C-alpha cells in the first residue's frame, strides 16, 4: 500500500559519510537527489553543545546518540553449529543512527591503508607462498590499487582539514611522519595536533627503542580551516569527549561540519530524516533497481522511484538490505557459493594498561582528542617479515588514549578488589598516573570462510523482517598476530618508565559484549570476479548496474587501520566513476 512519490534521479539510503559525499557529488553534477535517513537530524548547537555534550553517562554509557537495538539489531553466534541470539544491548560495536551517521560520534582517526593492503592475496602469496596462508582464509585483492585511490584519499583529507604529518610525499620520506605510508601527493592540510604529556612520552620512548613514531592523523583539527566547499571548522580544544560524543565546537570533521552546509544550499538536494528504508525495489528482470520503499514515523509506507540507487547505510545494514531485497546470491559457507554476506570482518584490538609512580607522573588524561597519540607502524600490514612468526597481518599501535572520563577510565592494578575501600583508594591513587590507551593495538582482521552475515531464521525487527545474523570468531592467525603486537606494545610502556604493565591480549572466542571498535567490514565486497564479490571495482553491484553500494561493506578484508579514510576515498572514487563513466552510458561498467 505504498504511496508513490515523484521520481528523482538518485535516491541515497543513509545520510552518513558516504551518503553525504555521494549526495554532494551527484547534486553537483546536476542530478535531482534525495537522501533517506533512518535516524534524526542533529547538529552541534541544538543537539550536542558544549553546555551538555560532555555527559559521560548519557552518551558513553546509555548510548544516547546511537541506534536503539529495539529499532533494529543483529543476532550473533561464534560458530555455525550454534544458535544465534539477539544482541539485546550493544557491546562489541556501536551502530550509528541519524544524519551524519558515525561521522558525528567517531574519533576522527583518519588513516590510509597501505599499498600492499589492496593486493593482499597477491602480495602475501608472492612473498610467503600460498601455503603460508591458512586454507580457510578468504582474503582477496580489491580490484583497485592505492595509487588509483590516492587522489581520493587526498580529497577526503582536504575536505576534513585532517591534521597530520606526512611521511612520504611523492616518494620522499619525511622525518616525523609515517615512513611506511603509501606515497601521498602533498602534505596534510593542517599540521598535527599538539600531543599531551603521556602521548609525547610514548613517542620519545618509541624513538629511543628505534621505532619511527608519528602523530596520529586527526580529523579533530589543530587549526581553524576552510575546506574546498567553503565550509569552515574550528580548532579542537582537547575536551576529551570525542568518540561516542558529538563535537560541540565544530572542530571534529563530520558530514555536518564539512559537507552538509554546502550540500543543503543546492536546490536539487533534499533529505528525509526519521524514515527507514524497507527494501530496494527491483524490476521484473531483477537487473534494474526502480527505487526504494521506506516507512515514516507514522507508519506510512512510501515508494521513492529513482534511476540510480546508492546504498550507504553502514556495513551490516547494506548487507541486510541486499539480502532482503533479493539482490545478489546470498553466501553459503557450506558450499562456498554466493557473494552477499561473505568476507565479513571486524578488527583485532587489544590494550595495555600501565601504572606509573604517582609521585613522578601527572598525566591529566582528560586532556585529549579523539585522534590524539603518537603511533608506530612497524608492525602493520606486511611492513615486517612475517616468516618467523607464522601469521599474516598486523596493525599500528600507539598511546592513543582519548579520555580520562572516570566511569570508563579509572584503571586499578590487577589484583585490586572490584569494590570497597581498597578499590576506592586504588582508583584515587592511580587516576592521574595510569594509562589506558583503549584501542592501543589496532590490528587487522582477515576474512575467513566461516565468518559471514546472513539472515536470521528466528528473530525479527519491528517490521517483521529477519534480523541480520553474524557468525564470527577469531582465528589463530589473528590471535597470534595480536599476541605478538601486544608484547611489542607493552615494551614501549615499560621503556616509558611504567612500574607495572598489564597486557590484555585479544583472545578467542570473539565476545560480542566487549567493545572492539565499530569497524565492521565486508559482506558486500568489491572485487574483480563476480563469483566471489558483490561489487565491481567501482562499487557497482554486479547484478544490478544502477545500484552502487558504499561503505566498509566493500572491504574484502580489514587492514590494520581505522577504515573511514578508505571508506571515504572509495566513495569519492565511485562518485568519480559515476560522474565520468556511468552517467554518460548507464550500464555495467565492467565486463566480467
Amino acid at each position: 500500500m505504498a504511496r508513490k512519490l515523484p521520481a528523482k534521479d538518485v535516491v541515497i539510503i543513509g545520510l552518513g559519510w558516504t551518503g553525504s559525499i555521494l549526495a554532494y557529488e551527484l547534486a553537483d553534477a546536476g542530478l535531482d537527489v534525495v537522501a533517506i535517513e533512518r535516524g534524526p537530524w542533529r547538529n552541534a548547537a541544538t543537539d550536542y553543545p558544549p553546555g551538555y555534550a560532555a555527559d559521560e553517562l548519557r552518551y558513553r554509557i546509555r548510548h544516547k546518540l546511537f541506534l536503539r537495538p529495539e529499532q533494529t539489531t543483529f543476532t550473533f553466534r561464534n560458530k555455525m553449529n550454534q544458535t544465534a541470539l539477539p544482541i539485546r544491548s550493544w557491546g562489541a560495536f556501536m551502530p550509528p543512527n541519524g544524519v551524519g551517521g558515525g561521522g558525528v560520534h567517531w574519533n576522527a582517526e583518519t588513516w590510509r591503508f597501505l599499498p600492499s593492503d589492496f593486493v593482499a592475496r597477491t602480495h602475501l602469496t608472492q612473498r610467503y607462498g600460498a601455503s603460508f596462508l591458512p586454507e580457510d582464509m578468504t582474503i582477496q585483492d580489491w580490484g583497485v590499487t592505492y595509487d588509483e585511490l590516492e587522489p581520493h584519499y587526498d580529497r577526503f583529507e582536504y575536505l576534513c582539514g585532517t591534521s597530520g604529518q606526512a611521511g612520504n610525499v611523492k616518494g620522499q620520506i619525511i622525518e616525523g611522519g609515517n615512513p611506511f605510508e603509501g606515497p601521498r601527493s602533498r602534505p596534510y592540510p593542517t599540521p598535527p595536533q599538539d600531543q599531551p604529556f603521556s602521548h609525547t612520552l610514548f613517542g620519545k620512548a618509541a624513538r629511543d627503542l628505534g621505532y619511527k613514531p608519528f602523530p596520529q592523523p586527526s580529523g579533530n583539527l589543530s587549526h581553524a580551516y576552510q575546506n574546498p566547499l567553503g565550509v569552515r571548522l574550528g580548532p579542537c580544544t582537547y575536551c576529551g569527549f570525542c568518540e561516542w560524543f558529538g563535537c560541540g565546537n565544530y572542530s571534529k570533521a563530520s558530514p555536518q561540519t564539512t559537507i552538509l552546509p554546502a550540500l543543503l544550499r543546492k536546490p536539487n538536494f533534499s533529505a528525509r530524516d526519521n524514515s527507514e528504508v524497507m527494501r530496494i525495489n527491483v524490476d521484473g528482470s531483477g537487473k534494474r533497481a526502480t527505487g526504494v520503499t521506506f516507512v515514516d514515523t507514522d507508519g506510512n509506507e512510501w515508494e521513492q522511484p529513482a534511476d540510480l540507487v546508492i546504498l550507504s547505510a553502514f556495513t551490516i545494514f547494506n548487507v541486510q538490505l541486499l539480502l532482503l531485497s533479493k539482490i545478489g546470491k546470498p553466501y553459503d559457507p557450506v558450499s562456498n557459493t554466493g557473494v552477499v554476506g561473505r568476507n565479513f570482518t571486524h578488527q583485532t584490538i587489544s590494550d595495555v594498561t600501565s601504572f606509573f609512580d604517582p609521585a613522578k607522573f601527572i598525566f591529566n588524561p582528560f586532556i585529549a582528542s579523539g585522534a590524539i597519540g603518537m603511533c608506530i607502524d612497524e608492525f602493520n600490514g606486511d611492513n615486517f617479515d612475517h616468516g618467523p612468526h607464522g601469521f599474516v597481518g598486523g596493525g599500528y599501535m600507539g598511546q592513543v588514549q582519548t579520555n580520562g572520563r572516570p566511569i570508563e577510565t579509572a584503571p586499578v592494578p590487577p589484583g585490586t578488589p572490584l569494590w570497597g575501600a581498597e578499590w576506592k583508594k586504588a582508583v584515587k591513587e592511580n587516576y592521574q598516573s595510569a594509562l589506558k590507551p583503549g584501542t592501543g593495538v589496532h590490528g587487522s582482521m582477515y576474512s575467513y570462510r566461516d565468518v559471514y552475515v546472513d539472515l536470521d531464521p528466528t528473530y525479527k525487527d519491528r517490521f517483521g523482517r529477519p534480523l541480520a545474523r553474524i557468525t564470527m570468531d577469531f582465528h589463530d592467525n589473528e590471535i597470534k598476530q595480536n599476541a605478538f603486537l601486544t608484547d611489542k606494545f607493552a615494551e614501549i610502556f615499560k621503556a616509558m618508565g611504567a612500574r607495572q604493565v598489564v597486557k590484555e591480549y585479544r583472545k578467542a572466542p570473539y565476545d560480542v559484549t566487549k567493545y572492539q571498535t565499530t569497524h565492521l567490514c565486508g559482506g558486500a565486497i568489491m572485487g574483480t570476479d563476480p563469483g566471489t564479490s558483490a561489487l565491481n571495482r567501482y562499487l557497482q553491484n554486479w547484478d544490478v548496474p544502477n545500484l552502487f553500494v558504499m561503505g566498509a561493506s566493500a572491504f574484502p578484508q580489514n587492514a590494520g587501520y581505522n577504515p573511514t579514510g578508505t571508506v571515504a576515498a572509495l566513495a569519492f572514487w565511485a562518485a568519480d566513476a559515476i560522474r565520468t563513466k556511468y552517467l554518460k552510458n548507464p550500464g555495467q561498467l565492467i565486463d566480467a
Partner: protein
Amino acid sequence: MTFQNKGDIMIHRRKFLISAALWFTGTTSLTRASVISGHMPWSPFPMSPPEFVRPGPWQFFTVDEAVAIEAIVDRIIPADPETPGGKEAGCAVFIDRQLKGPYGSGAGLYNRGPFIKGTKEQGPQSPLTPAELYRKGLAGIDKYCKANLGGKTFAQLSPDQQDDVLKKIESGEAKFEEVDAQGFFSALLKDVPEGFFSDPIHGGNRDMVGWSMIGFPGIRYDYRDWVHRHNERYPHPPVSIAGRADWTPHKA
C-alpha cells in the same frame, strides 16, 4: 489620535520576521519524520537538554529497598576521612532515578523473544529488566541475610558482616531463589560507580565529590592552554552541567 506602544511603530513590520526566521530555519524533531532542504535546520532551543534530578522522595525504591540499597552502596564505595562514601555521594538516589527511567525499564533494548540462554560471548539474554533485577535482588539480599544472619536485614548488619555477605554473593557462594545473585551484583558493580562518577545532574556524585577525589574537571571543554603543560597538576575545580558554586555571584 492616540497611539499605543508609541516607540514601536516604525519597526513592527519586522516583528513577523522574527517568527518567520524561526519558520525559515525549519523545525525538525528527534522522532518525527521531516523533509530537510534549503538550509541547515535550527531551532532556538536545545533539542534534547538533559533532565536534572531533583532531590525528593524515592521514585522507584520502596522504603525497605531504599534502606537496603543505601547500605549496599556504602559498602561498595565506603566513606573515608577524605571522601564521602556512596550513600552520601547520592549513589542510591542515582540508581533510584535511573531505575525509574528508561534504563530501569530496559527501554530501547531488543526485548523480543524467544529468550534463550546462550554463551557468555553472546551477551545477556534475560528478559529481566534492570528494575526487576533490583527488585528481586534487594528482596533476595535481605531474605538471604535474614535466613543466614540471625534474622537481620542487610542494613542491620555490621559493616564487616555486610562486606562478607557481598563477597559471598560475588563469589557465587550465596545464592538467591528468585534471581541470579551474581548477576545482581554485576549490576551493582556497574551502577554504583556510575552513580559516583556521573555528572551530578543525574543524582549522584553530589557536590562533585567523586570528581574532586580523582581530580577530574568535569564538563570543561577548552584545554588549549594546558596541552603543553606536561606533568603539571590541573588546578581548576570541577564543573557540572549544573555549574559550580563560583557561577553564582557571592554576596558582598
